[in-house]
């Protein structure tokens, strides 16, 4: 409020005419100007979301627990079977722990991919009436994602102790890998924002496609690093970071280092590209919110 009044210019020139300035503005709005708002929205949603429920925050755990229960049940009935031997045939893990770990990471990936579209859609009113740092919505979404993931990971601690008798140090090594996976998914989700906000087919397709995507992702089965099965890891962007992080958590090592590293390195540029697309597209989307 003090000092020189800010100078603001709105014009029709493309934002990317000065990409450096645009990136600086995004960085400033994401990490500084939007931080307080993101925190307040995060706390507001957290307080408001479970206030009128009986199960409260248990709803955070329920989706991966329910999914795990289904797949463990199907496996116990012999509907499908697979080896749960780790890299180099070294370790064998319990099926419940293996599937639960995969489900928790997969759930995080799905929510991260859908988060940007959901953030725009559930804040249409605010977006079309108030000029606030738009990136605050993304920051708030990231807080939500990591909070939910952290709570779910707490579930893994008793599960690890019960099923395998100990906790692997690999859990710590898996944290940055999971973080990169989430950034990659959020980046892809941000790139989808213009299309998904204008054409409601996109979020519908996403929700229909997710179960199929899960089948072709090694969430409930083990993926050996031999051709041609490991190609799935390269062609399916959901796979390499998920497999690598789960391997690290369960076995302390992974066979899929190359694919994991490649997608890990790609995650940050994809996230930055997503932020650019998001920033540039919001005014045009707000215009259409007015029309529709």
């Amino acid at each position, binding site marked *: *409020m003090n000092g020189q*009044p*800010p*100078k*603001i*210019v*709105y*014009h*029709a*020139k*493309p*934002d*990317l*005419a000065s*990409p450096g300035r645009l990136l600086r503005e995004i960085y400033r709005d994401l990490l500084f100007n939007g931080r*307080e*708002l993101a925190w*307040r*929205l995060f706390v*507001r949603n957290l*307080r*408001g979301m479970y*206030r*009128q429920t009986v199960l409260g925050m248990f709803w955070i755990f329920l989706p991966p627990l329910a999914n795990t229960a289904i797949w463990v049940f199907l496996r116990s009935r012999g509907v499908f079977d697979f080896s749960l031997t780790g890299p180099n045939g070294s370790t064998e893990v319990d099926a419940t722990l293996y599937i639960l770990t995969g489900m928790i990471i997969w759930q995080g990936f799905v929510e991260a991919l859908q988060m940007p579209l959901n953030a725009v859609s559930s804040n249409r*009113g*605010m*977006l*079309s*009436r*108030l*000029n*606030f740092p738009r990136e605050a919505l993304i920051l708030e979404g990231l807080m939500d994602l990591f909070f939910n993931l952290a709570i779910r990971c707490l579930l893994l601690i008793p599960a690890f102790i019960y099923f395998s008798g100990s906790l692997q140090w690999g859990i710590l090594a898996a944290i940055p890998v999971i973080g990169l996976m989430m950034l990659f998914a959020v980046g892809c989700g941000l790139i989808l924002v*213009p*299309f998904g906000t*204008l*054409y409601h087919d996109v979020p519908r397709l996403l929700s229909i496609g997710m179960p199929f995507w899960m089948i072709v992702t090694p969430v409930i089965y083990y993926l050996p690093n031999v051709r041609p099965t490991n190609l799935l890891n390269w062609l399916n962007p959901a796979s390499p970071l998920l497999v690598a992080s789960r391997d690290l958590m369960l076995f302390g090592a992974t066979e899929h280092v190359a694919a994991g590293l490649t997608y890990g390195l790609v995650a940050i540029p994809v996230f930055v590209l997503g932020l*650019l*697309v998001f920033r*540039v*597209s919001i*005014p*045009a*989307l*707000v*215009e*259409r919110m*007015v*029309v*529709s």
Partner: protein
Amino acid sequence: MDNEQIILEVDRVWKKYCRNLRRAMWYGVLDIASQLRSSRPSVPPKDMLRPGEFFAVKDATFSMVPGECIGLIGPNGAGKSSLLKMITGLIRPDAGQIRISGRVGALIELGTGFNLQLSGRENIFINGTVLGLKKPEIARAFDGIVEFAELGAVIDDPIKTYSSGMRMRLGFSVAAHLRPQLLILDEVLAVGDVRFRMKCFQHFNNLIQQGTSIVLVTHAVGMLPRVATRTIVCEAGRIVYDGEVQKGLTIYEQGLVEQANRGGATADQHWTNARILSAVTVDEAGYEKVEFESGDDIRLRIELECETEVREARLIAAVSSPGAETIGSMATPFQEFYFDLQPGRLVLELTLKKIPLLLGAYYFDVSLYGASLTDFCHRRTGIGGFRIVAPAIDINGNGISGLIRFEHSWRTVSP
């Protein structure tokens, strides 16, 4: 105007829209793609329109200095909200530039960001942050906000238990305690009861005195003279007037009259035996004139055309205003004025002596009948529009206001 002092400068701004949803979606994809390019060829605004598009704002230019309050008025679809959304940075201009020097606070809708499950206290902090206030600023203003909203007793209750008026007061109160250099208000002055509204006006006047500039969009134009220092009138995307408040209001009302004329034109097409060709207000010499002062004589010249003879015809002329509908009506038999219509044309003149109307735009509804009201010939609505442009009205308790200027006097009498 000193360039150093200008807080808002709208410079040749254009904005286009598309009403067709499917096209608008596709154009959205194209627009975003063009924003992702590093450069774009410059196209003159007139060549920008794609199929199905129209200009909501055309070549808007104005500027304002600290302490000004502009009332931005115009009929629906005039481009006010688009202009406001561009000034607040919600949408981009398609051509032109908007420059702002200072912190902007915008109040497009009250209570944006409220969570009904949470208490008034929690929502004040959330709403304040959404509107751009920092935590210490909200904490400092908290007591003032609660006091202004008059919600001290219920501030810790969930706001889903509040009435809609209480929610509005809370939203307004948070926004009213923003300390921006430029405050944008869109249709938010219809808040609460009359007493609370007066309190809001007082608050705005204080802000203006402290140098805050306000852009105010409202259809409730009657309240504008309380706060506005200038009016901008928009019509069909263009700024048609920028200047003194009361003149702006009459031009706005005149626009409403013309809009009503266009709407009534279809219904006015049916006639039997004779019809009303035109009705215009004229001066003493018979020349067309539309601006008068309160107390002037107003002459309405009505031209009739007859196809088949109408005996003992009668005319009824009603003076109306967009806000108050019919103010007064007069029929020819009342003054024992009788006339017959023979095939051909006839011009009649109605004189309203010492017109007691105050500032505003007015028009006539004229009906033509035969000897009885069942012998309907023709009716024209919204014709003969005229404006009363003086004297100035005052709604701050120092002068005259309303529609009618009463001849009056005051004196003291013994109890």
